[in-house]
């Protein structure tokens, strides 16, 4: 029972992570980029929770709480930056924001 839960959970986490990564790479809007990041973080969190359930340990859920806190902080900073960028460039296209190149 736990074996199946474990496998399904990890597969789901993998799918979510891949979706997040793909949308991070294909989306050009900064808001969507942030959202894809959120998806990837949650995929990682899901993997921790599944692993915690498999070995009956609380650690997985503790780490997930950490990830949530970090994600919240990241979104706060990220959204603040997005607002600044929009004010300055009148655009949220990440490809347009390529001034910092080697």
């Amino acid at each position, binding site marked *: 029972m736990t074996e199946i839960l474990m496998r399904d959970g990890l597969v789901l986490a993998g799918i979510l992570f891949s979706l997040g990564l793909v949308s991070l790479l294909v989306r050009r809007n900064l808001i969507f980029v942030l959202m894809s990041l959120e998806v990837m973080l949650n995929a990682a969190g899901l993997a921790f929770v599944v692993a915690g359930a498999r070995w009956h340990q609380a650690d997985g859920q503790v780490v997930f709480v950490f990830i949530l806190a970090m994600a919240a902080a990241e979104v706060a900073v990220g959204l603040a930056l997005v607002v600044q960028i929009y004010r300055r460039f009148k655009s949220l296209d990440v490809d347009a924001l390529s001034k910092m190149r*080697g």
Partner: protein
Amino acid sequence: MLKLLWLIVALPFASAAILMLFGPRFSRRATAAVGVGAIGLSALITILVAAGFLSAPPSDSSFTQVLWTWINVGGFDPQIGLRLDALSLVMVLVVTFVGFLIHLYSAEFMIEDEGYSRFFAYMNLFVASMITLLLADNLLLLMLGWEGVGLCSYLLIGFWYRDPANGRAARKAFIVTRVGDTAMLLGLFLLFNDLGTLEIQHLMQRASERWPLGSPYAVATALLLLGGAVGKSAQLPLQVWLPDAMAGPTPTSALIHAATMVTAGVYLIARTHVLFSLAPVAQFAVALVGAGTLLLAGFSALTQHDIKRVLAYSTVSQIGYMFLALGVGAWEAALFHFLTHAFFKALLFLGAGVIINALHDEHSIFRMGGLRKELPVAFWTFLIAGCSLAGLPFITAGFFSKDLIIWEAWSANHGHPGFWIAGVFGALLTSLYTFRLIFRVFFGPVGTPVTKRPGYAMTIPLVILAFFSIVAGYLKQPLLGFLDSVLPPTIATHTGGLTEIRCEAIVALAFVIGLYFAYLFHLGKRSLSEALVQNPVGSMLHQWWFAGWGFDWIYEKVFVEPFIWAAQINKSDFVDAFYRGVAQLTELFYRGLSRTQTGRLRWYAAGMAVGSVLFLAMVLFL
């Protein structure tokens, strides 16, 4: 008194340093005062020291003053130490005294030159290095002075550096003497390796204790030191640099390339005479080099047009006499000839400088003439020096010293009738080319008109040197006696049917024959000398001797051209090509990597994703 010894070296060094640092800001008068004054003081102190040395001879007739330890590494501790004995005292006296007169002369001679202070800085540095060379108590310090005089010689030959030919002459002198220096350095390595010291006295003592007569070590080191001496003293086969060295200012030629530096080789051999006595083969080589050089250079001197080149070949030839004397074991005779030669040859060069200056840089003796009346002081002093060089019998210094060498080339235990014949024939040649010069320059119809006359600063040294060109001959007995404490006496073995008086008569006869032919060809019937040059054999010999027996040509073909050829082939140094490749590869990587820095967020994210996948794959599957 003897404690002042270090000042003899220190004063010229100090004035050279002052002139190098502040010379351009000094007035000409101040420059001359510093440059000439330092050498004058040095000469005065030398005389004081000499007086102290003679009045109260130190124990074992030498005085050593150790200033400090130069290096101290693994049992090798050469010192900055000065050693005064009869040999170095005589040499230092001549160097400072003649050097002072030449400096005095240059104060006027160079007055219009823009490099006035530079000239005196180099000259003072030269005198300082030369004294270091002479007073050094170990061979390493001697080497320092040896290289120092070589450097100054280079700097002064190329003094008028705007003319590329002068620079070429300077480089030639430096490189050719460097060949000899390399041999000398190898000799020093060998000596240190086997005897464990470079301090000259210890070295000589240990060499005579450890090496048997004719041991291969003694032969090898003596030959290597001879190589150094041959380079510095412009002897066969490295004599080619000296005639070209005449590109430098005339006082330089007088001081460096006639009176002092070129006799450093003679000093070196006399200093290390123990080694040469242990190696009869090497000593024979010394005599052979001397005899060969004196003849070859004598013939070349006969054909030169340039007054300074005649004197240069004559210098080579006279140093050949000194080498001949060293080679047959007549050590003291070599030093005696050094002494007289320093006076009369410096005088000849200074006289030539007066003439060249007076005739507005005219060097060719065939465009001169009739200067007897125009430049009386130069004429009389030049005549005295010329007679001394040619060996006017029983009066001049040159006769006594040369005759002594020729006599001992016969009578000494290493002597040989062949050497004697070479010496006598060389005396004939000397007389011939000297009077050719004098008759062409001072007699006959007036050539180039005189535009400038020398002042007192130039004529006084001439007169003093002329005085010594005669009087030095009478120093023969005291000088030889004085040198007995350092140099072994000559052992006379072959007397045969020849006595010293008869030998003197023969040398005097050689002088007269030379004088007669010079008169015939260059004053009496000048058409005869032209006829001689026109004749096919004569013209061939003339060209051959004029070109210094083709040594330059051979060296050009054998060494210079292959070297330039190799340098041209390897212009893009193949070792460099490898390193240039590494640099190019790095730059390629840099360009490739900098292209990936697009500034696009998604591109970076993709890079990170692919990278982490790759790393994970490596961890999992490898």
